[in-house]
């Protein structure tokens, strides 16, 4: 009897302790959702009106994303009046610069922008989802850690399995609103480099 009581008390204590912590080890009963990128491959083209604040400069224009038949993605940033700022091709997890105006054609700016865009159209390179739910909010959002080669990322996804927040050491990405599966408003803010981007959906086809 005493033995069973002790075991019962231990089980109750274990239950109490596990409830008070935010981390929950995944058991066989919990399914880790397959995390999709913020911009999924289920559209042909998406057009966003975008503001970029970089160092002391402010750019506004249109970001045009196109998923190509060969599974690559083309990204064009152009002014509202039609002049191109830059165009990238994203293929096999690598970026290629197709064209670029002077201001953006600097290694640090290109690399930073491309890393940001990668987090919109893909998951971090060579990353795996850690099997721990780090946080479970009242509105049903779950936060997971994605561990890459040199960086780790916290991904918060909502009940519809869409990404609402990404936290990385040097930046955070927020998706403020979705229209179906398509993000309607995205903000990227860097903490160590003077760069902020805001995307507002114009149309998606």
């Amino acid at each position, binding site marked *: 009897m005493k033995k069973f009581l002790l075991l019962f008390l231990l089980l109750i204590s274990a239950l109490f302790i596990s409830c008070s912590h935010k981390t929950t080890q995944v058991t066989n009963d919990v399914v880790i959702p397959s995390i999709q990128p913020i911009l999924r491959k289920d559209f042909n*083209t998406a*057009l966003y009106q975008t503001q970029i604040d970089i160092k002391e400069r402010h750019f*506004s224009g249109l970001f045009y994303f196109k998923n190509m038949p060969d599974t690559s993605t*083309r990204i064009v940033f152009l002014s509202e*009046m039609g*002049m191109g700022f830059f165009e990238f091709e994203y293929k096999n997890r690598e970026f290629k610069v*197709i064209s670029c*105006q*002077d201001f953006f054609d600097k290694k640090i700016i290109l690399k930073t922008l491309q890393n940001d865009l990668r987090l919109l159209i893909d998951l971090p390179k060579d990353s795996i989802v850690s099997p721990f739910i780090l946080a479970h909010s009242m509105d049903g959002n779950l936060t997971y850690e994605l561990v890459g080669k040199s960086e780790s990322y916290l991904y918060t996804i909502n009940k519809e399995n869409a990404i609402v927040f990404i936290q990385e050491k040097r930046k955070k990405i927020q998706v403020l609103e979705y229209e179906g599966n398509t993000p309607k408003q995205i903000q990227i803010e860097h903490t160590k480099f003077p760069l902020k981007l805001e995307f507002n959906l*114009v149309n998606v086809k």
Partner: protein
Amino acid sequence: MRNLVVFLLLICAGFANAQSKYVPVTNMKDLEAKLNANAAKTNTIMCDFVQEKHLSYLQDTIISKGKFWFQKENQLRWEYMQPYKYIIVITNGKFIIKDNNKKSEFDIQSNKAFKEVNNMIVSSVRGTLMKDAKFQIAAFQNANSYLIKLTPKDKTMKAVLKQVELYFNISDQTIYKVKMIENQDDYTIINFKNRKINEKIPPAVFIVN
């Protein structure tokens, strides 16, 4: 009989093609005089525009629409209304941009880039771009219109633009289309419609809140 019909159709097609084909203008001074005379008597312009950005490799076109106002000497409002909102106003030596809800203001004279853009926009609209020494100019005409091709000489502009084409109605020398060709062969066409000349423009048009 059938051969006659085919022959007549071919003749008509050839004739139509000849109508649209451009040939070099033989008398540039005459053309310049006509455009200058038109510019001299134009005090205000109001019109709608449709802009098409052609992405050549991507085989896609981004279409936007808006309104345009111009008042002598160099007050201008260029407002995109669909599918996004964006406003450029040039007034009282200022270049004002409003994108979404963010308003930015720049002094034209203190910023070389804005000064150049201001000069180019105003010259394009007034049809006086032919006087601009920064461009190599070639002029052509067909039955209905003049086509002026401007090739930038300036290194900075050459990095952005390959050529600008201006289309004028022969009947009244008003500009109805602008085509801007970039170096990767992407190009932007702006068609002007519902043009109103020399009508009064309310001063509030050139104020951005």
